[in-house]
């Protein structure tokens, strides 16, 4: 029996005159991996930012577990709410004034760093290095380590393979797949990369012009009759 973790109900979001999300509905289920795909500017990242609470939506509601409408939370409650998420940002967003040890300690002071480093396939020698001294692939791994170190209820992966060469992208996809499967963590992935979808998504939501045009099981994605999504998957503009 699938249990709903996040319920997005009729949310609208616009910036000045540009409508980004239009009465969007989406359910995210516990322990499942959902991939949100769509072209650039379709509203994928805005949607996840609304879900996390980094951005306020105009109307509608987002519920998380027993929390009814996250928009009504106070500043302090919102801070607690945000701490339920572990996020791998598109550019990793490691604090560049801190070394890797300090970056990871920021997420969780108690946990052993050696364990988490081996989980993401990084040597201990990087702990004293600064983010600028690491390759983009390594930064992504550290970002992922930081995201899971705080034992989040929901893991958000924003374009996890963007900017990586195909070999490193494949390694990151496999790493995420192993972590997601092992930890059974609810995951939302925003991606352009169909390899990420095939590798670790249980369900897929295709977003176009601010609405979900297609939602279904990842393994049925190629049976979809939605022409926009077929074009997207085949890389036809």
């Amino acid at each position, binding site marked *: 029996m699938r249990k709903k973790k996040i319920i997005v109900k009729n949310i609208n979001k616009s910036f000045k005159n540009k409508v980004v999300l239009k009465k969007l509905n989406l359910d995210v289920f516990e322990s499942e991996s959902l991939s949100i795909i769509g072209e650039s500017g379709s509203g994928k990242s805005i949607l996840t930012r609304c879900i*996390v609470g*980094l951005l306020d939506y105009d109307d509608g509601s987002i519920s998380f577990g027993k929390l009814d409408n996250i928009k009504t939370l106070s500043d302090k409650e919102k801070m607690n709410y945000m*701490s339920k998420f572990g*996020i791998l940002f*598109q550019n990793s*967003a*490691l*604090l*560049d004034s801190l070394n890797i040890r300090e970056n990871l300690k*920021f997420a969780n002071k108690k946990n052993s760093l050696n364990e988490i480093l081996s989980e993401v396939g990084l040597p201990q020698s990087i702990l004293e290095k600064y983010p600028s001294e690491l390759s983009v692939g390594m930064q992504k791994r550290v970002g992922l380590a930081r995201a899971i170190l705080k034992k989040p209820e929901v893991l958000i992966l924003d374009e996890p393979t963007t900017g990586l060469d195909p070999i490193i992208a494949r390694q990151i996809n496999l790493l995420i797949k192993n972590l997601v499967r092992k930890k059974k963590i609810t995951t939302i992935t925003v991606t352009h990369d169909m390899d990420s979808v095939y590798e670790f998504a249980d369900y897929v939501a295709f977003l176009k012009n601010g609405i979900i045009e297609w939602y279904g099981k990842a393994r049925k994605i190629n049976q979809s009759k939605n022409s926009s999504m077929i074009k997207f998957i085949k890389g036809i503009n």
Partner: protein
Amino acid sequence: MTRLLSSALALSKRLFNLIFSFFYSIGEIVDFFLDCVKYFITEKFYFNIFLKQFIKIGFNSLPVVGLTSIFTGMVLALQSYTGFSRFSAESAIPNVVVLSITRELAPVLAGLMVAGRSGAAIAAEIGTMKVTEQIDALKTLSTNPFNYLIIPRILAGIISLPILVIVGDIIGVLGGYLICVNLLNFNPTVYLQNTYNFVQFIDVFSGLVKASVFGFLITFMGCYHGFNAKGGAQGVGQSTTYSVVSSSILILLMNYIITSFFFRL
């Protein structure tokens, strides 16, 4: 006639938009300030970050402020001599130097120097953090960016600027002393005695009050513009420019306001 009317309408619309955006910006700045006060009172204070910023803004600005002060003191002594020697009032030079340095030049020049050096650095650093989502990352790591990034910097500015100005006062007076004693053949003891006897507590105090206010303006504007940076590198560059320009103008404006306040005392 219709064309004239429509161009007048367009002009008034632009004027309205300009006035609206001006007041909107002021509203946003006030809102940002109130958030700073609220989070300072209610949430965690990062003392180690404050110390780091205190060293960055205060200690690391010492060479710039010192050099500015010594040359200003030297120039002031030379220029005063040019004027005062015309009516045989050379003995007033130590008084003019100490008064100008403590009340006016040390705080304003230190303020402008720190605005260019530290204000720009603050805006660039926070702006980069904003556009690379590091500030969002902080929020999701249960850290309030106001407490972690903004408040320690503002407090460091408020506290370090007066200390820089005290150092600037001493070095500026020393600059005047060096010129008067070595170049204009003043008696060193008389020079120092004149300086010491003439200067009053209020002269130094008014300079320190100015320095504190300037320290606040520099760090606040740096943080505000950095925190509201948009886009990529261009947005960060723009926020840095806005920070330096706005804090410099505000320093000059507040300098006049504080001077006129102390003038009435």
